[in-house]
């Protein structure tokens, strides 16, 4: 068990969420090996985002246990989860629109900085040095995302694709070990999608993070993931390599058989 646990960034055991009797997510066991890219798929309403929100602390699970790097984080508050090492993006992009790109990334760095608020008033050298380092780090991350030229643009004025990448930069700034991407290609055309897919892989390779994707688009999922987990009606119906999942009759029935057929 311990040997296995060290290989896992995240593991959940029997986590469950009910909303006033409605079971949104039902007793899910889920493991993410380190440095992998894992996808969570399922039709609309399958409970993917609820699952995400439990991992990130927005929802408290009704039952079950979540471990990050072998430490329990069940029921931790969102900021505690981030401090424990999980960064995330949002399906419907939630940047701080009236802050510049670099300020957005600086917010991501927030918990890695130690300066006290009263120091901000008299600005000791240590604080200035820390801020300089933070700024440098923020620019590095922006450069990684090809966003450096737009560092002083307000996030709300960035093109859609840039906003997606800025959100990833902001999440990476939290110094996360596990990066959760919630439908990163939503609203993108095939070219942008392809670009982003490549990009996600390179982020994993270069920064050594582990990535969990929620995706709708089967092409993206099959192309990039090493493992795929399929949810339907809040239950895990399949798990395995993309090829295995693709061949699973329950998946075909639940996922491809319904609405997604139109998606191609």
């Amino acid at each position, binding site marked *: 068990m311990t040997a296995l646990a060290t290989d896992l960034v995240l593991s959940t055991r029997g986590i469950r969420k009910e*909303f*006033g009797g409605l079971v949104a997510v039902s007793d899910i066991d889920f493991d993410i090996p380190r440095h992998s890219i894992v996808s969570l798929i399922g039709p609309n309403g399958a409970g993917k985002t*609820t699952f995400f929100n439990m991992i990130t602390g927005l929802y408290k699970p009704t039952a079950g246990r979540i471990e990050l790097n072998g430490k329990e984080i069940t029921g931790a508050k969102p900021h505690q989860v981030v401090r424990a090492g999980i960064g995330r993006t949002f399906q419907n992009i*939630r940047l*701080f*629109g009236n802050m510049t790109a670099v300020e957005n990334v600086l917010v991501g760095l927030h918990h890695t900085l130690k300066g006290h608020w009263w120091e901000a008033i008299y600005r000791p050298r240590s604080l200035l040095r820390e801020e300089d380092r933070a700024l440098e780090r923020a620019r590095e991350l922006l450069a990684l995302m090809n966003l450096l030229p737009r560092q002083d643009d307000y996030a709300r004025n960035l093109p859609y694709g840039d906003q997606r990448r800025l959100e990833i930069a902001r999440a990476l700034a939290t110094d996360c070990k596990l990066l959760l991407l919630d439908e990163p290609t939503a609203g993108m055309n095939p070219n942008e999608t392809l670009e982003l897919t490549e990009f996600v892989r390179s982020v994993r390779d270069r920064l050594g993070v582990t990535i969990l994707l929620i995706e709708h688009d089967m092409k993206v999922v099959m192309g990039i993931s090493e493992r795929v987990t399929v949810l339907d009606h809040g239950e895990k119906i399949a798990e395995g390599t993309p090829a295995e999942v693709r061949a699973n009759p329950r998946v075909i029935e639940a996922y491809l058989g319904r609405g997604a057929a139109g998606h191609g």
Partner: protein
Amino acid sequence: MTAISSTAGGPTARFRGMLADRDGQLRIVLVLIVATIVYGAFYNDLRQGALRPLFEALPMPSVNVLIVMFYYAILALGLNIVVGFAGLLDLGYVAFYVFGAYTTAFLASPLHGISIPWWFVVIAAVGVAALAGVLLGAPTLRLRGDYLAIVTLGFGEIMPVLARNLDNIDLSAFGGPKDFNLTGGNIGVNPIDAPVLPIPGPWGDELVFSNRNPVAALYLILALMLLVFAICVRLRDSRLGRAWMAIREDETAAASMGIDTVSTKLLAFGLGASFSGFTGAFFGAYSTAIFPESFNFAVSISILIMIILGGMGSLRGVVLGAFVIRYVNDALLPYLGGFVDEPVRAVGAALPEIPILKDRIEAFTLTSYNYLLYGVILAVMMIKRPEGLLPVAARKAELHGEGVATEATFGTSGEVAQAATDFEAAEGHLATPESRPDGTDGTDGTDRGDRA
């Protein structure tokens, strides 16, 4: 990873706000300082001497009006931390002002026979107000914005009631007097010791900063206001300032970036309250008397109006807003009233007998219409120019932008908004049966866990 260090060490981003201040604002600040000093020093000479016609023809503010303008600017800067930076609507800001003023009254007046120098009292006042802010904020900052507004309003309303009523507390059960007078009741506390520096000069043996020597008080409050302004600039440009802004923009996203939203909001509340307490301490000592009536709901709202008029979050803006509102209230309206009141009353006297209305017109006083003006400013600004007169650049774009969601202030593009709606229609519905009636989606669930 390549470091882009050619510009990285530079101060551009860190001091972006500060630099903007240097370019435009520092000059304004200098002009303000010099103008205030000159005006204060020569006010009496000017009024009675060379500029006498000017003072008679125009609504020039007296030194006392300037003092009021300055300390309201501090109040507005303090409330701006709560409303403008952190995005929390506080309608009971006057409560902390009460704490500051009454702490001063307790520690530096014959009421309880304590007479500590103001320079120490002010520290206590700030501390007490900050503590009150934290104590009120701790249980309430989890509430939704409009509920928080009501709770703070209630708190602001209770404080003067306590000040009015706590004048005959029966402490006999605890071995104390039967009618202990804590607050002075309706008649308030009078006198209160003024701030004094033992410096002899043309003003006498010691320098008194009160309405007996308004010029000195003016300089003191100018210095205090500049200090508060500088603190606000530095807080805004700090890590804490970014966290506040992030919370204002999108609380859930801020929490998901590792910001402890509750303690960050609490800090905004506490700091805002401490500025209010600070001003309360000055107000009590400067006017050397306080009354419960000085701290009603209208004071809280008038400070809010200053912020909205000037531009929420904009430091220059809120100072301007405070100046404008207090100037209009204390100098312009009385001045205009001098022209308008008599003719209107004459018309009223000439009117035939109309029940009630005739009496009212006969007793017309323009200055009593200031709340009407406040109300109009609030509504018109919200509808026509929500970003204020001197807005923060980003805010202006935002508030005129399209597709601003109900609670998030971040307007996404139509496409994204549509995608979000579609998605949450599917998944968010599971989250809402017992929760918010405002239709915000299930992802905004930071506080639900605690409540459930």
